[in-house]
């Protein structure tokens, strides 16, 4: 089985979010970039397929040269080869189109993407990629087994979960649940050394045409201080929720 794991290069969760150039650009100053958490679950599941069922695992990112350390980290975790499509990821559709080209040319059976990346949270790349490559698609995937060309997947739905059967070629939007968090891997010294020798191919982008464009950013207005209510005066809380906040 040939697996491709899509890796998004995102600001670490604890990063302070700021904008520059008149609030038109994300400020990368002092921001630490990591493998998108949803993709990390998928990468670890791919490692499981590789080790338990025999699969090759490539990782791919659409982005500039600055994303290469993130791809090297994925190689250090155990991916066999990395691909970078050399263009700035500006909107979900164009990223999906670049990825679709990699998928079609590479002949992948299973593509594991993350449910959403924690920067733009669009949650659209996996579905668009499935649509563009005419693959089956499972969103919010929290469990995946593959037997030959058949797959069984579990999808999180509002208020529960759903088990589905489908077939390869398959694209999933994966998340926590695909593997236990305790199974997530941290690159070790040997992995890091080996990653240096693994191939990282740079592909030039196709002419795709962007459909959406973020033109400016805003931060939420600063919040007023919390109103504290005495633990012995819960009547006051009920009254505030009714009269002031008007939520009950």
């Amino acid at each position, binding site marked *: 089985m040939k697996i491709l794991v899509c890796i998004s290069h995102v*600001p670490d*969760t604890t990063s302070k*979010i700021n904008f520059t150039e008149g609030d038109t650009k994300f400020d990368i100053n002092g921001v630490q970039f990591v493998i998108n958490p*949803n993709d990390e679950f998928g990468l670890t599941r791919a490692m499981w397929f590789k080790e338990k069922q025999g699969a090759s695992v490539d990782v791919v990112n659409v982005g500039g040269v600055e994303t290469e350390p993130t791809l090297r980290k994925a190689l250090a975790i155990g991916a066999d080869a990395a691909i970078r499509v050399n263009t700035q990821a500006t*909107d979900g*559709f164009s990223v*999906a189109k670049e990825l679709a080209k990699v998928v079609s040319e590479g002949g992948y059976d299973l593509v594991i993407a993350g449910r959403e990346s*924690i*920067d*733009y*949270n*669009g949650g*659209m790349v996996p*579905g*668009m990629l*499935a*649509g*563009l490559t005419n693959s089956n*698609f499972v*969103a*919010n995937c*929290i469990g995946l087994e593959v037997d030959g060309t058949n797959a069984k997947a579990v999808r*999180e*739905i*509002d*208020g*529960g*979960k*759903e*088990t*589905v*059967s*489908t*077939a390869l070629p398959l694209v999933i939007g994966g998340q*926590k649940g695909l593997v236990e968090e305790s199974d997530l891997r941290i690159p070790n010294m040997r992995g890091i050394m080996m990653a240096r020798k693994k191939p990282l191919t740079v592909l030039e982008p196709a002419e795709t045409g*962007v*459909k*959406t*464009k*973020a*033109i*400016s*950013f*805003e*931060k*939420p207005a600063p*919040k007023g201080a*919390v*109103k*504290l*209510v005495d*633990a012995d005066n*819960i009547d006051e*809380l*009920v009254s*505030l*929720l009714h009269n002031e*906040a008007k*939520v*009950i």
Partner: protein
Amino acid sequence: MSIIVYTESENGKFKKAALEVVSYAKSIADQMGSSVTAVVVNADDLESLGNYGASKVLSIKNDALNTFNAKTYASAIEQAAKQEAANVIVVSTSADSKYLAPLLAVGLEAGYVSNVIEAPSSLSPFTVKHTAFTNKAFANTEISTDIKIVGLSNNSFGLVESGGNASIEDFSPSLPESGVNVESVDKATDKVSIADAETVVSGGRGLKGPENWGMIEELAEVLGAATACSKPVSDLGWRPHSEHVGQTGKPVASNLYIAIGISGAIQHLAGINSSKVKVVINTDAEAPFFKAADYGVVGDAFEVVPKLIEKLKAFKAANA
């Protein structure tokens, strides 16, 4: 020119989010001087959509659509959009709508923006505001394609009754092979789901164990709320993963979020920032959640929550 909305229903009844997307679409239609057509699948009570601004309903009745399937549903909406020459398509941000919207975008070569929280600030260029950076910021995004798909965040626009009437037409799209077959669904049907809930009562590790969730459920029941939890709580198996809120869990956009025994770590806050009113109950006055909250009680959940339940019951009885 027309606007299409996909209105979700469950057991034949429209979800609140469905009425919200119709209300939202109506506001765009008024600005554009056009009208709203709702696409519905196996739902009854179709007339009710008129009250929220739909002037036409395309009603699909087909037993093959009894279980949700993203590809077939996306194809049905795509056919409706083509028939109506739609320029704007509005869907919600439920798990199902987010599942089908990217497929629909590919089918129609349409630009799609999800997690939208307001009516468009401009129609030309078509510009919408949506959450980004896991709720730490907002982005204003232009959609440049002829057909635009907007994914509206639940509870962000509200319901607006306009008292109109909708004409109803049967619609029979041709359904493609689904490719993904639902084998089983495991869902608590008697409970409000986090995505739909106007109020969410959430418990953290401060509750000490699953045996203490009785009071969380009771509080939720009094408020007609959904129950939720922090990540360690679902990791420990005290509560199902579907209740886990935050960056790696579910987002919550409720009107009221009550956090009990939750520290307010940044990854948790990321999931609830778009909730409107936040109440925190925590023993630790230094818990970071107090910085994000509107109302706070520094106190022991095991004393405060039973009192709150009692007071709310009295409030409800008095205001019934």
